């Protein structure tokens, strides 16, 4: 019961700390723009395209690789600044 009491205390503390924050079970809506619906629908369309259009998967992989590549470049530039041995 002592351990349980500590857990319950911690449970209450987390409620006090985070309970006042807005509900985050859904992505927010700004005005009439429902981000949650748009995101969910967009992903569903994306997966649908992946299923019916074979090159789409390859395109998505290439896009991911390129984004990762650009991220590495950004990190390198942040770390060594103007000495970056790349053109961009």
């Amino acid at each position, binding site marked *: 019961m002592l351990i349980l009491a500590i857990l319950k205390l911690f449970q209450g503390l987390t409620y006090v700390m985070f309970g006042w*924050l807005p509900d985050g079970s859904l992505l927010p809506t700004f005005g009439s723009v429902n981000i949650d619906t748009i995101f*969910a629908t967009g992903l569903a369309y994306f997966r649908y395209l992946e299923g019916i259009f074979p090159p789409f998967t390859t395109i998505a992989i290439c896009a991911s690789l390129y984004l990762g590549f650009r991220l590495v470049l950004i990190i390198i530039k942040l770390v060594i600044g103007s000495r970056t041995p790349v053109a961009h």
Partner: protein
Amino acid sequence: MKKFCKIALFSFVAILGYGSFTYAETLDLSNPSFPVTANGNSYTEMTWYHSTSTNLYFVTLWNNTSGYRSAGGGDCVNSLAGTAIGTSLLQSGINSDGSITICFNFTDNIEYTGSSLTAVDIQSSSGGGTIFLSGANSPDAYFSTRCIVTYGCSGPILPDNTTHFTYIYPSNGSLIATTSPTTVGDDNFQGACVLNDCSNGQGYATTTMTWEGYVAPVDFVASSTFISATIAVTTGTGFVGNSTYLIPVTSSGVFSYSTTSKPLYGGGNRLDSHIINRVPVSGWISDFSCWITGECASTVNNLVSSTTIFTLGSISITPAQTLFLKNFGTQQGITDQLKSYASTTDQLLRSCNPFNNFDISQCVSGLIIPADEDVTSSLNSIKGNIMSRAPFGWIVRISTLIATTSTTTIPSISYTFQSDSPLAGDTLSFDVSSYMSQASALSGEMTSNMPDHKTVWEILQTPINMFLYIFLVYVMITDITGINFHSGGRKEVDNNRLN
């Protein structure tokens, strides 16, 4: 000695902390209270021990019950003294000796199976009493009752703050009639809203419809007159034609209630699914917007499906009730749950009662080592407190959506020429699936005349992939070196590059 006194005092206070939720009930694991019918009457009783106004809940199991009970007859002769809640409850009254008799109304020619939970708001000022359950003229009835009350006859209350459905009626797959309306224009609608897998709030709403529309998260709401809860539909779903579709829904957050409506731990809570039939507004702009965002400018026809009746497993329900409701389809299930309950913290703490079943080893064990279920419940609550709130909840939501495997068919785009056009009445349409799908007529049915008869995509897949990867490498090299093959030489290099 001083130290011993401190420990003793602490232990006493600790016990009192939970001891304020006194209990006076012994679980008989071998016999979960199924009184056998005698002479057309089934009968059981419970006793409570607190004098203040409180709510009393009890579970009743029906097993091939048939028959009827006439109103006002037999044991049901007393005037109503409490507020009876429950569809099958006929009347109740306080007897002269302080006991309460509750009678169930059996309708003729109806066979009762399954179970129900009934709640009674005890307004008695007496120092306790006994409840009698009676089901006369029900020759095959089996009652199993369980007293669940804030004070008195149940065990110590360990609030289960997790939000979940503990009991859902009707069973999964059942189709319930639509409450309003059943038709919109020429479209017929049958709605059913059934949740299953009650243990963690996961569930599915089943909808059968013969019209075109879709369901968005906002469309699935709780009845405002009873209860509100955050119900998330995982994805917007398209319906075309006569089809049945499972809409994954989950409950989250904490159930809340209106100020005028108390939470009913019986069968009175309900959840309405609002299925919205959106008739798209014609016009290419709205069609394009609909195609891009999934939010169609539309005329909304709000269809309220029938409700799912469910029992709550949150707020201040005792573990006993939760355990009962999780699985009380069979007598064996009840027995198993009782055995499970026997290992919970509050059950172990009963061994600390010096006047009843005192067991020092179990008492100490209960004081120090919490039961797995209690620990799990607390950790889940902590997790819920943090991960259901912004911004952490958004991260969880995004992760959930990304992990979801459901798809939505991309709607076709169509445009009908207006009356002032030479092509008035003609319709142009573009269906992405027809042209892009590997199973479509364009690419799926055109096959090679070679022996392997490969389809268009099977032939083109390899060169297309090669082209894409080569293009990727080209772009990366361009980014790193500054060499632009288009201009036939090296791009001008950033001035800072060699510094």
